[in-house]
């Protein structure tokens, strides 16, 4: 079974770096993007299993990215973890039109991001498979 793939999107390089390291160390494949547009392009080319994105980004906001992913049949099922410095900015209608499963406010804990990723895309099974291999 192939390793699960996570798309990490943030305009702060340090953040994409640390999330990638944490999830990569836990056995996930990671792709990164610096903004919403780039992320959408990557996701449509090769849909990941999970998207972790920042809310406020240039060109296209996190919510807009999620809405676009939801609209496309190829990516409509992909769950999203939203990292945001402004948890309150997410309106119910934004949650309704997207596949955002969890909102984590900054400063966030990479540990918790990993736990949430595991919960959403069943990393435990993946580890077992890998360990068995």
């Amino acid at each position: 079974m192939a390793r699960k793939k996570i798309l990490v999107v943030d305009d702060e390089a340090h953040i994409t770096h640390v999330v990638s390291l944490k999830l990569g160390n836990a056995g996930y494949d990671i792709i990164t993007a610096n903004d919403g547009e780039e992320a959408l392009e990557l996701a449509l080319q090769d849909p990941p299993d999970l998207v972790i994105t920042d809310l406020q980004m240039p060109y296209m906001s996190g919510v807009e990215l999620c809405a676009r992913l939801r609209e496309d049949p190829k990516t409509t099922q992909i769950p999203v973890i939203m990292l945001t410095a402004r948890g309150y900015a997410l309106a119910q209608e934004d949650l309704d039109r997207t596949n955002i499963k969890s909102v984590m406010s900054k400063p966030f804990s990479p540990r918790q991001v990993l736990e949430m990723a595991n919960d959403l895309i069943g990393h435990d099974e993946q580890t077992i498979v890998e360990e068995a291999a």
Partner: protein
Amino acid sequence: MGRAGIAILLCSAIAGMISGFVAVFLLPMLPISSGIVLALAASFALAAIVAGCIAPVLLSTGRDVIRLENQIEEAIDSGSQVTLHCGPWLRPLADALTQVQSRWTEKVLKLNTRLRELEIRHRLIEAERDHAETILNSLHDAVLVTDSFNEISLTNHRAAELLGFDTSTAARRPIDEVVHDPRIRELIKEIRSSGVVTRQKHVEHAMESNGEAGGRTSTFDVTLAALSDGQSGVGGVVTILRDITKEREISQLKSDFVSQASHELRTPLSSINAYVEMLIDSEAQDEASRQEFYQIIKSESDRVSRMIDNMLNISRIEAGIVSVDRTDCDFVKICNEVIETMQPQAAAKDIMLSMKSGPLVYTADADRDMMHQVVMNLVSNAIKYTPEGGRVTISVENDDTTRSVMVTVADTGLGIPPDALPRLFEKFYRIENYKRVAKGTGLGLNLVKHIVETVHHGTITVTSELGMGSKFSFTIPYEDPTSR
């Protein structure tokens, strides 16, 4: 009166003479008995003698009367006390008149004094009323005083302007006819009909600021106070409307600043927190990774600290409590120091960092550290947003028209989009698309503008062409204009 007296005297004299003539010549010719004629003649003659004797006395008295009359007329005209002169016959009358005149003169004096007092009092009251009206009209708040019939008893221009009426015709008219805003009318009536003179009532009310629909909507703090009617009830109501739109905007700006600042601080804090947790969880697999994490933590905490410094400096300048240490600043020297400091960063991007200056550049009266910070900030930005192989040039010259030293930092970098130019010096403003080009607090240029314009009364301008580069120029007056 005088002429009448003379006429009487003349008549009596003439009558006397006629009586004498009749007695001597005419009576003997009449066919009457000589005894009667004698008697009549004797009586006519007596009458003539008496008339002849009395006439001079009467004539002199008549003249006295005329004199008295003239003197009294004079006295009335002059309004002052006059001593009446006359012969002995009229002396008692003159004395009595003098006394009467004296008493009247006294009364007139008293009345005059009283009149003057009243005039002064009237003028004072008028001045006080003008004074009060001027004060009332110079208030920026609208004042409306209504009486127990809900009629306007006192108001000012601002109220007229705001509530849409004319001050000259509003007095004594019911508020229902004068005040267009229904809420204000309702509030006034409510307070009045409550029947108790209680403490002030404050209500926030939004309405068109010119009293007519279509104007700008402003927010008002409406203060209503019931006036006592002298007994126990409510006589009238004082209504004061204060425009608090600006205060609301400022408080909104402040809360926006706090929310923006905390957001901006969270980003580096978030990195610090995440990398520390990674170290705790031993996620750095080798020494090189650990070193990288330490570096990131260090640079992000520096960023937090820079932001806090900038915020504090900006708020100190805005609050006017910054301490400024003015000396004769040599800008050529300052720019050379900045170049020396920034040279390694420029070299790392293969950027040519150079300086040119006129043969003789004057010094300017400024805070040296702040000037260093301004030049440093502009040069650092120029290097950040100039691609490899570009050029950053600092020039220093005298601007004799404004009697200032002018420093220009020009680069061959990305340039600034025209729509971003007006917002460039705003707090926390960053050009969205350049965020990934370089890190920043979004406060640097705001601080620079404050230092140049607020603290040093200079100017800062920017010109830029997208893709061609940007040019920031600031001027600092040779002498501080406020110290002269």
